[in-house]
């Protein structure tokens, strides 16, 4: 328990004393080539501050707990002494003569009336006391062994690193603690215990800090090295404080409240307590007060100093404000999520960014993002003034920060920033000239980086062009939801405005949506039509016919103005309307999800005309089919992004005209189908009953490697699954062919035929851990069944459909699997997230070199040929090269 923190660490946490212990690097300065390097840090040495050191670096000895005199001026020798820095605008620091903000602040010190244990070293002190002699202060190991141990440790550190040294040392110290006799002076050792946090007991008797300090002083320098302490920098007696450093005023500024009252920092409060008690202790000692009173004051001083360092020691009541709220002292400032390290140093924040809820807008382009007007007036772009843009920028400055499109700041060539207000507007307009910079509001077409967390792949951050829109949400085209993995159930996204020309160019060329179309994972488009856009195109290309007027109207409503490719006929089929989007020389054959009456799923596009087949998820959807991939290959990214947008709008516009809705009647079945389904269930029930009966009579043949009951389970599952599949088939045969629910399932827009069957006929077997439900009560799942009942209904088979309604037992089984899968996802998400993080961190510097090897940053080889086949997936089609097409195009040239 004793040595939890290795000493180096403690030194780091506690008192980093920089330069003073550093070797002076005179030579380093002479051969410094760049004159801009003022001084170079050669090394950093962490150590414990010695009392001499504390006094040396202090500029004032604090003697009074008072802060200010009657005029409100800091008292000399008080905690706010102006030699320790200033926090009032009017005052001058007496150490460096600087004012507020320029003065870094300086340490002071107080002389403690009695030594006090430093809380953060309590464990280390314990270790030292236990493993050294109480009489002679030598380490409890024979002299000749000390040298050899030192050599051993040295060797271990060299070979296995400091971690291993610490480990070995810990074992060693653990052994020493049990020694009962000093090998040097033969003195008997008494067991020392710690009464946390800072009281040491020797055989139930307290050792006071003075005595502890005496013992620590006796430890020889040679022995210290074995403990891993360099006596040049750390002497153990320094861990018992005799003087204490007072942090500069600048790191504990007081706040002036509106009422003119001053509110001091928590640290100042604590220091006030320390100084006050210290003074009282001095007075009592000098007056020769009884020992009990002195002891009490001493303990109180120990408490205050302890809580000054750390106010969340488990054994101590935290020091509180008058309001009862605990003080935030040094450790609380550094530690945990809101502490200096994680909050201020590791936390990354950025300006010129925005975050809000997202909502869909299919009428904006895929590479656009709609932003609210209020945001457009806050987000700015610095625009350098030149002769050509001067009139334009003047107009913006004139409109000012309130009217859009205006400007918020002007920056003079010397870097002075001026806010544009109604008062300064005239003067700003007057002085504006080339060389100035104007921070203007963002406008339509400006570049922005759009992001949704978790940013798992590069498509999670893409560059969009701004569109300023009314409302208070970000608008994005639903087709780009997939790469962001976004939906509109309350998702929020972030937006960043690049501030330099370089950043904007880089974002535009490397990150814009169209550059990210082809996924590096599988070499197909990650952006495609979704939901309504798919069902719309399916309906359109399947059977619809329009008059010429209606067709033109439809295309125009979808934002397609180029009608040159539209058929000249008076009656235009849906296929011809869709073909109007395609380029004239485009040929394609592929396979649709949909199969026609002849069982063919072929889709043929010849010379930009859809001749055969329908457009469904396999053609238009993201990550599937080669239609979009081929268009991208031939006509490039900008064309593709446009055509996806057009298809999308054409789809939803068709749907809007055609009318599309899902209804309860979509799941209606004719009476004969209902009868057939009933027959299937009856048969399945009979089969299962027979199986159970044969199991009970012990005539059931066990499968190889399975017990009889396992065999029974398998057989029952098989029967029930078959029954469910048959009902599914019956439903899909008998349900209305052109019901909208069915269209959604067939086109792949949403759902599948199983969902339809679950609504119309039968939900099916509920399974937990890959088995039928078998948990709950003894031998039964719910108390409404008999014990040992193995029938389908007693083991989670839901024979009803959602439309007809479930029995209470069925509903309960449904909730069981529902809860199970809920728990499963809730537990799995963080696990897989962490796994992903580790993989990403392990592989982050790997790079494919020009010889196609994958190497790490040190040049070590990880793969001899990237992916074992050297293929860039994003240049392939679904991970494969289409050799036939390559030959065809080469031959045709």
């Amino acid at each position: 328990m004793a040595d939890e923190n290795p000493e180096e660490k403690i030194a780091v946490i506690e008192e980093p004393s920089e330069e003073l212990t550093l070797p002076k690097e005179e030579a380093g300065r002479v051969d410094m080539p760049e004159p801009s390097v003022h001084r170079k840090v050669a090394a950093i040495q962490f150590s414990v501050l010695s009392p001499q050191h504390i006094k040396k670096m202090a500029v004032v000895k604090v003697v009074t707990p008072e802060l200010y005199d009657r005029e409100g001026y800091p008292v000399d020798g008080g905690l706010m002494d102006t030699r320790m820095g200033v926090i009032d605008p009017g005052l001058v620091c007496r150490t460096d003569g600087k004012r507020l903000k320029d003065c870094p602040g300086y340490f002071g010190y107080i002389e403690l009336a009695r030594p006090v244990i430093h809380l953060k070293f309590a464990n280390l002190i314990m270790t030292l006391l236990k493993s050294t002699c109480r009489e002679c202060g030598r380490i409890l190991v024979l002299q000749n062994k000390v040298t050899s141990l030192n050599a051993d440790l040295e060797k271990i550190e060299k070979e296995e690193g400091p971690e291993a040294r610490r480990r070995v040392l810990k074992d060693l110290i653990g052994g020493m603690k049990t020694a009962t006799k000093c090998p040097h002076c033969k003195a008997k050792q008494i067991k020392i215990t710690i009464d946390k946090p800072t009281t040491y007991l020797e055989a139930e008797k307290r050792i006071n800090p003075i005595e502890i300090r005496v013992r620590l002083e006796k430890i020889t320098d040679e022995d210290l090295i074995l403990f891993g302490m360099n006596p040049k920098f750390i002497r153990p007696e320094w861990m018992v404080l005799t003087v204490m450093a007072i942090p500069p005023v600048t790191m504990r500024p007081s706040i002036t409240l509106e009422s003119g009252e001053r509110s001091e920092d928590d640290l100042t409060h604590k220091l006030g307590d320390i100084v006050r008690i210290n003074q009282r202790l001095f007075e009592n000692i000098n007056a020769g007060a009884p020992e009990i009173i002195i002891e009490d004051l001493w303990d109180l001083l120990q408490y205050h100093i302890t809580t000054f360092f750390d106010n969340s020691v488990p054994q101590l009541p935290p020091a509180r404000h008058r309001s009862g709220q605990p003080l935030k002292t040094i450790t609380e400032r550094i530690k945990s999520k809101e502490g200096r390290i994680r909050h201020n140093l590791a936390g990354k924040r950025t300006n010129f960014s925005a975050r809000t809820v997202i909502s869909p807008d299919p009428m904006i382009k895929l590479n656009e993002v709609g932003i609210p007007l209020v945001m457009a007036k806050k987000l700015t772009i610095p625009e350098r003034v030149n002769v050509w843009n001067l009139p334009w920028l003047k107009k913006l400055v004139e409109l000012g920060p309130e009217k859009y499109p205006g400007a918020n700041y002007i920056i003079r060539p010397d870097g002075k920033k001026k806010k544009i207000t109604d008062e300064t507007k005239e003067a700003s307009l007057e002085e504006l000239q080339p060389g100035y910079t104007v921070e203007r509001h963002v406008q339509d077409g400006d570049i922005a980086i759009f992001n949704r967390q978790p940013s798992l792949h590069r498509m999670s951050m893409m560059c969009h062009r701004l569109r300023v829109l009314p409302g208070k949400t970000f608008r994005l085209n639903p087709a780009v939801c997939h790469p962001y993995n976004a939906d509109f159930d309350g998702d929020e996204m972030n937006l960043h405005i690049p501030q330099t020309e370089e950043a904007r160019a880089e974002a535009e060329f490397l990150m814009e949506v169209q550059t990210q179309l082809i996924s590096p994972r599988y070499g197909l488009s990650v952006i495609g039509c979704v939901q309504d856009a798919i069902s719309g195109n399916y309906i359109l290309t399947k059977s619809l016919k329009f008059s010429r007027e209606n067709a033109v109207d439809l295309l125009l409503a979808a934002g397609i103005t180029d009608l040159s490719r539209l058929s000249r006929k008076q009656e235009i089929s849906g296929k011809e309307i869709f073909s109007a989007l395609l380029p004239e020389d485009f040929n394609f054959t592929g396979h649709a999800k949909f199969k026609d009456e002849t069982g063919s799923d072929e889709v043929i596009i010849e010379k930009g005309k859809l001749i055969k087949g329908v457009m469904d998820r396999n053609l238009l959807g993201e990550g599937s089919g080669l239609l979009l991939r081929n268009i991208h290959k031939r006509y490039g990214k900008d064309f593709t992004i446009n055509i996806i947008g057009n298809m999308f709008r054409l789809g939803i516009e068709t749907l809007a005209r055609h009318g599309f809705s899902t209804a309860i009647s979509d799941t209606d079945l004719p009476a004969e189908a209902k009868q057939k389904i009933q027959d299937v269930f009856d048969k399945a029930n009979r089969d299962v009953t027979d199986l159970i009966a044969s199991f009970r009579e012990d005539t059931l043949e066990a499968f190889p490697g399975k017990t009889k009951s396992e065999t029974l389970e398998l057989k029952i599952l098989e029967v029930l699954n078959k029954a469910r599949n048959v009902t599914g088939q019956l439903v899909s045969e008998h349900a209305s062919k052109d019901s909208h629910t069915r269209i959604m399932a067939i086109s792949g827009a949403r759902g599948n035929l199983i969902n339809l069957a679950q609504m119309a006929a039968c939900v099916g077997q509920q399974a937990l851990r890959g088995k039928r439900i078998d948990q709950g009560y003894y031998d039964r799942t719910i108390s409404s069944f008999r014990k040992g009942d193995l029938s389908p209904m007693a083991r989670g088979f839901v024979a009803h459909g959602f439309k007809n309604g479930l029995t209470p037992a069925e509903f309960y089984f449904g909730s069981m699997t529902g809860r199970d899968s809920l728990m499963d996802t809730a537990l799995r998400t963080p696990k897989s997230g962490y796994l992903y993080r580790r993989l990403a961190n392990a592989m982050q510097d790997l790079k494919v070199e020009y010889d196609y090897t994958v190497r790490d940053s040190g040049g070590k080889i990880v793969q001899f040929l990237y992916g074992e086949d050297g293929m860039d997936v994003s240049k392939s089609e679904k991970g494969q090269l289409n050799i036939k097409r390559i030959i065809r195009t080469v031959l045709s040239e």
Partner: protein
Amino acid sequence: MAKKLNFDLHKHALVPKHAKCSDAEKKKILKHYQISVYDLPYIRKSDAALAEIDVKAGDVIKISRTSPTAGEAVYYRCVINE
């Protein structure tokens, strides 16, 4: 050292072929990739797959495995002591 196995692990479907490279081959490989042996991935001398091959630290092992993307893929590893 690993315990002697009582079956031939090279007959297992998941164990790829391991072969020691000759000095000439080794030289060629290192020259081709412009690396030293220590930039290769490692394999321990005690690795079960090397039990029947006489190797010492610094040798290069050629591993030919079947790959789902490329048919056969060649991999090289450098033998190290523990």
